[in-house]
């Protein structure tokens, strides 16, 4: 199990002309294994950037971040990529399924990158598609699935390689209330089954309410939890 420790995390981006724009300013955050955490805040408060930093999709410009005790700034890109692929699963607001692959192939994708054998890939992908209720949609492409179904495929994909942390960016943001609730329920159940840490960026108070802890961001800084 993996503990995430962000200390005085800062991130700024360069605007045209070279002027820096601070996105995260001195964020301290510790997430324990198995915890469910919601990150809330207004648009532009740095929620998604924080999630990207936590998932090693982006790097800090200041501060320190450790994943399971490993300082991610001190390791090579290759090792960081390995850490990302083995530790984290991602769910995006726009689903981000690969349009030319079937649902099953989309779920298999992280395993293919991990070098898992074909039979094992298929077995795990089918198990998860069964668990999210898409047994009969395995061969369908994203364009043939509804928004809720696509997000359930994304949930299966986020969990298929058995990560210790799942990072979800507005997972219900593109879904109606009922579908969003159903997707969130599947995600929480599956995460709880495997003791996975779940960090969710959300505007939805109902989603935040089902998480164990809520962190609020304002202009790149943690305002309370």
């Amino acid at each position: 199990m993996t503990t995430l420790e962000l200390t005085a995390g800062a991130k700024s981006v360069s605007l045209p002309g070279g002027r820096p724009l601070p996105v995260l300013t001195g964020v301290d955050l510790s997430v324990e294994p198995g915890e469910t955490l919601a990150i809330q805040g207004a648009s532009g408060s740095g929620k998604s950037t924080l999630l990207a930093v936590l998932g090693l999709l982006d790097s800090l410009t200041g501060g320190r971040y450790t994943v399971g005790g490993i300082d991610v700034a001190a390791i090579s890109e290759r090792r960081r990529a390995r850490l990302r692929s083995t530790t984290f699963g991602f769910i995006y607001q726009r689903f981000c399924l690969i349009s030319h692959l079937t649902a099953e192939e989309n779920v298999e994708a992280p395993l293919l990158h991990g070098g898992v054998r074909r039979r094992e890939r298929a077995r795990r992908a089918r198990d998860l598609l069964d668990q999210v209720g898409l047994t009969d949609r395995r061969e369908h492409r994203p364009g043939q699935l509804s928004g809720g179904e696509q997000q359930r495929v994304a949930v299966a994909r986020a969990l298929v390689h058995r990560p210790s942390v799942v990072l979800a960016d507005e997972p219900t943001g593109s879904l109606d209330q009922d579908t969003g609730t159903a997707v969130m329920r599947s995600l929480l159940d599956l995460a709880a089954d495997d003791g996975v840490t779940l960090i969710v960026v959300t505007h939805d108070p109902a989603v935040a309410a089902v998480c164990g802890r809520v962190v609020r961001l304002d202009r790149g800084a943690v305002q309370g939890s």
Partner: protein
Amino acid sequence: MKVISLALIAWQGIRRRPLRNLLSALSLTVGVLALVLVLSGGAVVRETIVFDSRLQGGDALTANLTLTDSPQKFAVAEYWRSSLGRALAPQRGIASVTASNDGALLRKGDETVSDLVVVTTEKALLEIRPFPVLRGTWLTDEPTYAPTVVLNHRADQMVEGQTGPVTLVAGGQTFRTSVIGVVYDAEPRPVAYLDMHADGPWQAAIEDTNVYSVQFTAPAWSIGDARSRINELASISDRAADVTGVERTDRLETFDRQLDLVNRVFLAVAILSLLIGALGILNIGLSTVRERSDELSLRRSFGATRPQVVVIMLLESQFVALVSGLAGIALVAGGLPLITAHFADRFQEVSTGFPVGGALLGLAAGSVAALVGSLAPALRASRVPIAAIMR
């Protein structure tokens, strides 16, 4: 990540836009096809031209020493054959007397072969111009009472299917003759070869109208060497008046130059086609990187490193190149027999085996073209920010 996984991911990428990839493959196929055709078809054409050229003019150096027409022309020809034969012995050259007589006729059954060339020659001519013997035998240098002839393929085709006695009209006289063989000599006109040493009573009548020459091969000489040596021999034996000229008959070098030029032109077309194919891949590659930025970021989030993204993109283009190469080779494999049949004579044994070397080179050229075309898109793809997917 294992190579097989990278290859599978690349294959998935190919499936994304099958038609677009097919069109890329088509443009590359044209290049591969042109290249393999130049390499294999060119070899068939060259083999054919070399084959015909050897039959018509011999190997380098082969030349014709034409002699003055005189009452002793046979004896003069014999003298020069023997004299040149001795001079050529150290380089294993051969000399053979040849006399030709245009405007003869050959009749068999209802068919008359007009405009027949009668070539009176020796058995040794076959060593200078290696005619394939299609039927029967070549000249034997043995005495015969009636003239016996060897027809070339053209004359044989003209009397094909006819039965009955064969008559030869030459030197104003008609002779009953028999055909002892048929050869392929690559000549477009009908030719009858007669044995100079047959010693029959018919011979004088035919030979009287002939112009004599001595054809010889001299592998170690240039045409200049041959002329100097013949002048020397004529001067020593006081026979300068016998010689009217020494002309080169082998034409391989000329054909080689022409073929080389044609091959260069085809090669330039092939390279141009490959370049167009590479530009097509570059164009499609650059435009798809933007379309695929989500997918590329997603793959990075699954653990792919930047170099692995480059490899995936390059492998995609290599799949296109492989398909193009195989299609090009398949087209050549199907078309080569047609080219062979069109260019090669039916009397020639042209190597019709599959051009493995050309095929491998075609595959390699397609692969390099695809690599060149996909390198810039691959590098651009590797620079797609991984966090772009969050936006």
